[in-house]
C-alpha cells in the first residue's frame, strides 16, 4: 500500500521543459529518504497546462505543483512527502480575475449594512458557547455584575436611546425602570418575545439560530437590572432549529455557571426556561403572550395594569423582543454613546429588516436607522428584478402600511414611518412592483388579521370581517365610490375601539393604500379595471380575431364551454359564460388570447 502518489507529467510539453530530469531527482530523493516503499511515482500523460510545466500532482491532497525545478525536489520530498506540509510557494497560481468580487464584505449588499444585533450571525458556530465567548460573549454580563449597580445598568440603557424592536418602539430603559422597584422583595420575571408572527418576517428567528447566547446574556443583564431571578423565552413551536439551539445554549450556559447560582462569584442568581407557543399571531401581543404563558387561552387583556407592575402570574415583568435584547451586550461593552452615535435623533442604533418580495437580494439586512428606502431597495437590495418599476414597500406587516415611491428618500426611523402612515413594526419589508395590485395587497393582509383575530372584542372580530367583505366586493368589480368612504369610516372605528394592538392596527394596510393609491381603488370601482391585472374578477378575456388561427384548442379546454367558433375561423369568448379561469390563455399557441 502506497501512501502518497506523485504524478509527474511526461507529456511533450513538460518533457521539453525538463520533467525527465525532475523524475530522476525525485526518485533519487525518495530513495534517499527511505520512502520508496511508501510513495508511488507515476509518469502520466499531459495535464494540459504545458506553459507552466514541468507539472506534478501529489495525492491524496491533490496539490498541483507547477514549474517544478530539479532544485525544488529536495524541499518537496522533505516537507510534503515526509512531513505532510505542502510547499506553498510551488503551488500553481491561477491568474486572478480582477473584476469578480469574491468576498461578501465588498458587495453593495453588505457594505451599506451595520451589524450590531447580527454581528455574530454567520460568523460563529451557534452551538458553541466557547466561540461566543471568544467574540467577547458574556463579558458584558460580567462587567455589569462586577462593576455596575443595577441602576447604573438601567441608566446605561436609557442613555443609549435603545427603543423596543418588537414594533411599538417603547424606550427599553424606561420599561426596565418601571419594573425596578422593590428589588429582592418580590418575585419578578424577565421575558423574551420570540413569537414573531408577521408574514414575511424572520429577523428574530435568524438571531436565535445564529447567536442564541447573546439573547441569554442580555436577559441575565435585564434580570440583574430589575432584580429578577427567572427568565422565560416565549418562542413559537414552528421554529424547531431556533428552539434546539436555544436549548443547547441554555444547557451550555448552565454548565459554565453563566446561568444558575452566584454568577461571576456574586450573589446574582438567574435561570432561563423556554415556553413554546402554538403560533397564534395575537400571542405576540404582550398581555396575550403572558395569558397564554399561564396556560390559558391566548387572549389579550386591557392595560393598565401594565406588565411592569402586574405581568406574568400577576408579578412585575418585563417583556422585550429578541432583537432588542441582541443589542444590549454591545451597548454595555461599547458604551451608550457609541450606540447613540448611530441613527437619527429619536431612533438610535440599527434595525434588522427581512427583505422580501420583488427584489434582487432577498434576505436579512441590518442598517443604521435613518437609511432611506431608496438605499435599501436600489443599493442593498440590488433593485427590482426583470426591469420592472418599484411601486411600494410594505413595512410592519399586517399592522403597518406601505411606503410609496414618492417617500423613498424619507430616512427610515420610528417617527418618520408613523408620519407617512406606516410603522417600523418588527422588521418585515416586502417590496412590490408594478405587477402588484395595492387593493389586492390590502386584502391579503386583512385576510390575515381576520384569521388571526382572537375574537374577544367585537370591533376587531366583526369589524375586520366587514372590512374584508368590502374589499372583496371591490376586487370582484362590484364596489362603488361610496364603499370607499364607508370603508375609511369603518377603519377608524376599528382602530379606535379595539382592545389590543392587533385590532387597533389591522386597518392600517387599507388606510395607507387608500392614502397613496386611491387612484387604483377608483379604477376598481369606477372603471371596473385592475390596473395591475391581478384581480381576476375585473379581468376580461378576449380573442384577437386577426391572430386566431381557429385551431379550437381553447374551445376544447374551456371548462364552461364559453368559447365557440368554426375550425380555421376566429373564435369568440362569451363574456357571460366566462369564469375567468385563464385555461385558454395557457393553451393558445398563437398568443391570440389577451386580458383587458
Amino acid at each position, binding site marked *: 500500500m502506497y501512501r502518497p502518489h506523485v504524478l509527474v507529467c511526461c507529456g511533450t510539453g513538460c518533457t521539453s521543459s525538463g520533467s525527465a530530469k525532475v523524475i530522476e531527482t525525485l526518485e533519487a530523493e525518495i530513495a534517499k529518504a527511505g520512502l520508496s516503499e511508501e510513495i508511488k511515482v507515476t509518469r502520466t500523460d499531459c495535464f494540459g497546462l504545458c506553459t507552466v510545466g514541468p507539472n506534478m500532482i501529489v495525492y491524496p491532497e491533490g496539490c498541483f505543483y507547477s514549474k517544478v525545478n530539479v532544485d525544488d525536489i529536495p524541499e518537496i520530498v522533505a516537507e510534503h512527502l515526509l512531513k505532510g506540509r505542502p510547499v*506553498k510557494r510551488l*503551488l500553481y497560481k491561477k491568474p486572478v480575475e480582477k473584476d469578480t468580487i469574491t468576498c461578501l464584505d465588498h458587495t453593495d*449588499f453588505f457594505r451599506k*449594512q451595520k451589524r450590531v444585533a447580527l454581528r455574530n450571525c454567520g460568523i*460563529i458556530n451557534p452551538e458553541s458557547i466557547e466561540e461566543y*465567548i471568544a467574540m467577547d460573549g458574556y463579558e458584558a454580563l460580567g462587567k455589569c455584575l462586577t462593576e455596575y449597580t443595577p441602576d447604573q445598568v438601567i441608566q446605561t440603557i436609557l442613555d443609549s436611546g435603545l427603543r423596543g424592536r418588537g414594533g411599538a418602539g417603547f424606550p427599553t430603559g424606561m420599561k426596565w425602570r418601571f419594573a425596578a422597584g422593590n428589588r429582592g422583595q418580590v418575585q419578578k420575571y424577565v421575558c423574551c418575545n420570540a413569537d414573531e408572527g408577521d408574514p414575511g418576517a424572520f429577523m428574530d428567528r435568524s438571531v436565535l439560530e445564529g447567536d442564541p447566547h447573546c439573547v441569554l446574556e442580555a436577559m441575565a443583564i435585564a434580570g440583574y437590572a430589575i432584580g429578577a431571578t427567572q427568565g422565560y423565552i416565549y418562542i413559537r413551536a414552528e421554529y424547531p432549529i431556533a428552539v434546539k439551539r436555544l436549548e443547547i445554549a441554555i444547557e451550555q450556559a448552565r454548565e459554565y455557571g453563566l446561568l444558575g447560582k452566584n454568577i461571576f*462569584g456574586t450573589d446574582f442568581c438567574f435561570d432561563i426556561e423556554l415556553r413554546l407557543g402554538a403560533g397564534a399571531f395575537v400571542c405576540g401581543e404582550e398581555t396575550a403572550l403572558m395569558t397564554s404563558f399561564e396556560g390559558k387561552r391566548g387572549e389579550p387583556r386591557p392595560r393598565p395594569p401594565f406588565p411592569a407592575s402586574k405581568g406574568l402570574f400577576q408579578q412585575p415583568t418585563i417583556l422585550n423582543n429578541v432583537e432588542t435584547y441582541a443589542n444590549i451586550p454591545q451597548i454595555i461593552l461599547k458604551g451608550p454613546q457609541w450606540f447613540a452615535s448611530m441613527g437619527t435623533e429619536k431612533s438610535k442604533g440599527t434595525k434588522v429588516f427581512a427583505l422580501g418580495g420583488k427584489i434582487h*437580494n432577498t*434576505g436579512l439586512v441590518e442598517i443604521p436607522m435613518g437609511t432611506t428606502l431608496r438605499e435599501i431597495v436600489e443599493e442593498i437590495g440590488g433593485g427590482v428584478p426583470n426591469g420592472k418599476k418599484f411601486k411600494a414597500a410594505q413595512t410592519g406587516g399586517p399592522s403597518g402600511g406601505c411606503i410609496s415611491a414618492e417617500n423613498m428618500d424619507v430616512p427610515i426611523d420610528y417617527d418618520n414611518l408613523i408620519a407617512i402612515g406606516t410603522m417600523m413594526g418588527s422588521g418585515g419589508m416586502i417590496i412590490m412592483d408594478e405587477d402588484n395590485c395595492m387593493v389586492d395587497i390590502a386584502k391579503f393582509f386583512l385576510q390575515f388579521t381576520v384569521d388571526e383575530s382572537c375574537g374577544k372584542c367585537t370591533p376587531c372580530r366583526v369589524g375586520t370581517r366587514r372590512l374584508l367583505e368590502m374589499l372583496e366586493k371591490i376586487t370582484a368589480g362590484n364596489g362603488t365610490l361610496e364603499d370607499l368612504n364607508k370603508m375609511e369610516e369603518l377603519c377608524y372605528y376599528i382602530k379606535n375601539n379595539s382592545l389590543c394592538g392587533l385590532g387597533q392596527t389591522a386597518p392600517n394596510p387599507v388606510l395607507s393604500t387608500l392614502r397613496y393609491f386611491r387612484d387604483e381603488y377608483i379604477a376598481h370601482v369606477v372603471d371596473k379595471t385592475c390596473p395591475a391585472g391581478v384581480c381576476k374578477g375585473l379581468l376580461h378575456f378576449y380573442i384577437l380575431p386577426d391572430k386566431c388561427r381557429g385551431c379550437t384548442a381553447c374551445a376544447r379546454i374551456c371548462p364552461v364551454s364559453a368559447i365557440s367558433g368554426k375550425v380555421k375561423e376566429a373564435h369568440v369568448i362569451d363574456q357571460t359564460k366566462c369564469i375567468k379561469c385563464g385555461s385558454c390563455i395557457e393553451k393558445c399557441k398563437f398568443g391570440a388570447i389577451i386580458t383587458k
Partner: protein
Amino acid sequence: MKSLEELRAIKAATLNKIGICNDDADAVKVLVGMATCGIAAGARPILNAFTEEIEKRHLKNVAVSQTGCIGICQYEPIVEVYVGKEEKVTYVKMTAEKVARIVNDHIVNGNVVTEYTIGAATINK
C-alpha cells in the same frame, strides 16, 4: 463562572483554536450557513461533502463548522472559506459537485474558484 479572568482565559484559549483569529497562516476554516434558510436549501449534504472530501485527502489543519444566517438567503447554501489571515471567500448556491472543486482548487492549491463566488452570482448586478 467565578470571575471575569476565568471568562477571558476561555476566550484566549478559543481564539487560539478557531482558525480565523490565530496566527497559523495555513489554518483553513470552512463555515457552512446552517440557519433555516441554509438547511432548507440543502446545506446539510454540503457540510457532509466537505467533511468527506477533507477526510479523503487526509487534510489536516482544516476545520469545517456550521454557522447562522449571513443574510443573503436567496443565495443559499452559502459557504465561506477562511485561509489564514487572507480575506474570506464567499461561495454561493453550493452543490456537492462544487465542493470537490473548492477543496481541490482553493483549499489545497490556493486558487479561489471565482465562478462559484458571490461576485459571479451577480449579487452586485
